[in-house]
């Protein structure tokens, strides 16, 4: 049976690579692979200047405590959060073929651990590259082994905790008694985290830099109780933070013992996990499908949210129904919540600085404006509340009695409006926090005028960027991921880089006529006070006209599309 499972794994990996290799015959994937490899080389492999081991030792030490706390959080989270049952998830095919197969539970668990090792080994290699500039003087193989032990320990603990939780659900009190020691450890960990954070909060609040925050946590972690509770996490991470080879060998022994102890704990726990595994697998399959389709997953379990709706008049422009539908999607996937949360956070942070004359107000305003700029460039890539998430329903969309251009227009508006709303809120924050700042190079009147004109400017820009994204999905669906990707690798990342680059280039090209015409208008109105306002309006108008033309073209393309 072991041979069969090894065969399954080996052949799956071979076929996956073979499929990716075959795909490289297509120029778009070959080009994407080159870009993906280039990106990895630039970020992870490229030689860097400076000597290794020159990072500040004190910062490294402080970070070790923060890392230990992070590990403690992960370990305790395994016991507290129901989502951690995902550790029991198998693939749909594994469920269908392995569960009815003549395999013991232990064999299934061992198979799961084996599959987990493939991921862990890959991640450990990746982290060796990621952390090579962290200042560690250790040789790469030792860094790899340290990271492997850390990830393996976390993985084993997560699986063990999931099994214990399942046993508790299955056996009630009997299960409780059986797993009491493990649960006590989890509870103690939760208390430790609360304790450390409580002690560290005053220092963190007073901190002005990341180093001071780390020092605050370090000081709190030095308290006897916290020290005792962080003992185990420190043992797990110690090899990764060792400064010398001898130090590494001393630390690795303890970490390896923990790996073995947890392995015995997991393998020996004879828990009837099948039903929980089926549920977790179904949830995982749904998440993977949602991720592949680039759509956030719905949360049907939350009845409260389903009751929340927005009215839709029975009669009116049918295109409004598309916007309505997409807005409901935004509400139900938490995307609106996160957007509003982000904006609210910006407001809360900026409240103490409203009307201030100091640097704080300028800092908040700069941050808000930077976010507005970021949203202009990346907003339409991140928020895909338009045709891109509706592509799966192409057949349904095509039966709707709506001209293609109106449908595409409605889809574009569905993304452009929320992005513009968030940007406006951020602009308002920037304006409010600099109300009392009379030393800014831009006068109050001009700032107010810009704020008043921003809805038109932002809407025209967002409509343009979202239209470009939708155009890519409609015209080049192979380049913009609107359908599930099977067996994606580095080339998928390269594909994303290429698509982003091309889309940004298209955006710049779309801006050129608007800039040229508005510049000409501004120049011709050079004698007129506030002639720039007319120029900005003209620029927005040119952008909107370009978009209107593009949307009509895309509408015709949509009408000819076949699912």
């Amino acid at each position, binding site marked *: 049976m072991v041979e069969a499972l090894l065969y399954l794994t080996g052949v799956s990996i071979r076929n996956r690579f073979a499929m990716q290799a075959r795909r490289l015959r297509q120029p778009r994937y070959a080009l994407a692979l080159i870009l993906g490899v280039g990106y990895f080389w630039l970020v992870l492999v490229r030689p860097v200047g400076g000597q290794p081991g020159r990072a500040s030792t004190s910062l490294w030490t402080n970070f070790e405590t923060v890392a230990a706390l992070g590990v403690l959080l992960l370990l305790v989270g395994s016991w507290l959060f129901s989502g951690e049952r995902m550790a029991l998830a198998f693939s749909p095919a594994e469920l269908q073929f392995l569960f009815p197969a003549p395999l013991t539970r232990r064999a299934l668990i061992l198979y799961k651990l084996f599959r987990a090792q493939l991921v862990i080994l890959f991640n450990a290699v990746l982290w060796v590259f990621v952390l090579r500039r962290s200042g560690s003087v250790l040789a790469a193989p030792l860094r790899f082994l340290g990271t492997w032990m850390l990830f393996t320990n976390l993985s084993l603990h997560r699986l063990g905790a999931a099994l214990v939780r399942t046993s508790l659900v299955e056996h009630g009190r009997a299960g409780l008694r059986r797993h009491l020691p493990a649960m006590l450890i989890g509870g103690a960990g939760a208390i430790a985290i609360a304790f450390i954070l409580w002690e560290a909060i005053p220092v963190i609040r007073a901190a002005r830099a990341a180093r001071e925050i780390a020092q605050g946590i370090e000081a709190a972690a030095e308290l006897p109780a916290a020290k005792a509770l962080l003992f185990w996490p420190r043992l797990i991470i110690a090899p990764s933070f060792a400064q010398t080879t001898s130090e590494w060998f001393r630390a690795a022994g303890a970490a390896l013992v923990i790996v073995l102890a947890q392995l015995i704990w997991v393998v020996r726990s004879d828990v009837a996990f099948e039903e929980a595994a089926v549920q977790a697998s179904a949830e995982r399959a*749904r998440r993977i499908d949602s991720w592949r389709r680039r*759509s956030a997953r*719905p949360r*049907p379990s939350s*009845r409260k949210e*389903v*009751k929340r*709706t927005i009215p*839709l*008049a*029975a*009669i*009116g422009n*049918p295109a*409004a*129904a598309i916007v*309505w*539908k997409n807005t*409901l*999607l935004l509400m*139900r*996937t938490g995307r609106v919540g996160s957007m509003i949360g982000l904006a609210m956070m910006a407001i809360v942070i900026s409240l103490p600085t409203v009307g201030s004359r100091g640097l704080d107000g300028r800092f908040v305003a700069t941050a808000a404006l930077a976010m507005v700029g970021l949203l202009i460039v990346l907003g339409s890539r991140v928020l895909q509340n338009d045709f891109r998430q509706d592509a*799966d*329903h*192409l*057949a*349904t969309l*095509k*039966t*709707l*009695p*709506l*001209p293609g251009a109106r449908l595409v227009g409605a889809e574009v508006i569905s993304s452009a409006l929320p992005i513009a709303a968030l940007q406006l809120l951020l602009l308002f924050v920037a304006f409010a926090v600099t109300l009392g700042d009379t030393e800014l190079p831009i006068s109050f009147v001009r700032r107010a005028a810009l704020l008043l004109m921003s809805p038109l400017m932002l809407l025209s820009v967002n409509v343009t960027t979202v239209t470009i994204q939708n155009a890519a999905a409609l015209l080049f669906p192979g380049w913009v991921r609107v359908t599930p990707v099977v067996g994606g690798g580095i080339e998928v990342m390269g594909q994303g880089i290429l698509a982003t680059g091309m889309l940004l280039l298209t955006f710049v090209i779309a801006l050129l006529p608007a800039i040229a015409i508005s510049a000409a208008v501004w120049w011709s109105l050079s004698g007129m006070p506030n002639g720039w306002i007319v120029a900005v309006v003209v620029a927005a108008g040119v952008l909107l006209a370009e978009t209107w033309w593009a949307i009509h073209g895309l509408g015709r393309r949509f*009408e*000819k599309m*076949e*699912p």
Partner: protein
Amino acid sequence: MLGLVGPNGAGKTTTLRAISGIIAPTRGSISIAGHPLAKEPVKAKQQLAFIPDEPQLFEYLTVDEHLRFIGRMYGVADAPALIQPLLAELELLEKQRALPTELSRGMKQKLAIACGLLHDPPALILDEPLTGLDPGGMRRMRETIAARARAGAAVILSSHLLHLVEELCTKLLVIHHGRTIAYGAFDEIVAERPQLAGRGLEDVFLALTSDQQ
């Protein structure tokens, strides 16, 4: 009511998708209620409803919201008043606030059918409409389809359930490899082939399609 039958891969779903405007026909033209689909797609689509074999629902809209969406899309002024009776007819009232992920396969099918019926289209295109329904649901669906046809709707029904086609349809279109091999009322088809006299639709269908192979 036209029954569209044919073996797997005959082109039934492709035909229905072309009639519904989802894909364009490679040859010929399609008109719905006098509106050419190629030239007046909006007016043509306004007159029809297509219910696919695999219901494709919007993950984030509840049952009720699917119908409101369709009501607005097709300009059904009294949609709010129609939704409740329609949901009751299809036994979906209890699920009106449920998202598709909470629905069984049969319920999803019922919802897709409800969406098709809401705007009372003069042309109704059904691709395997009974897939996933329980026996009671199948009977009610048969009655619903028949009632729509009696009320004057043109219905095209594609199904492998030949007894359903035999029971409901007034005319048959048998296709194979994308070509028509028989068209007309069942009696007319049999009358043209004396060797099939006295046989049921299943025997006639098998004889017709095996001839072509």
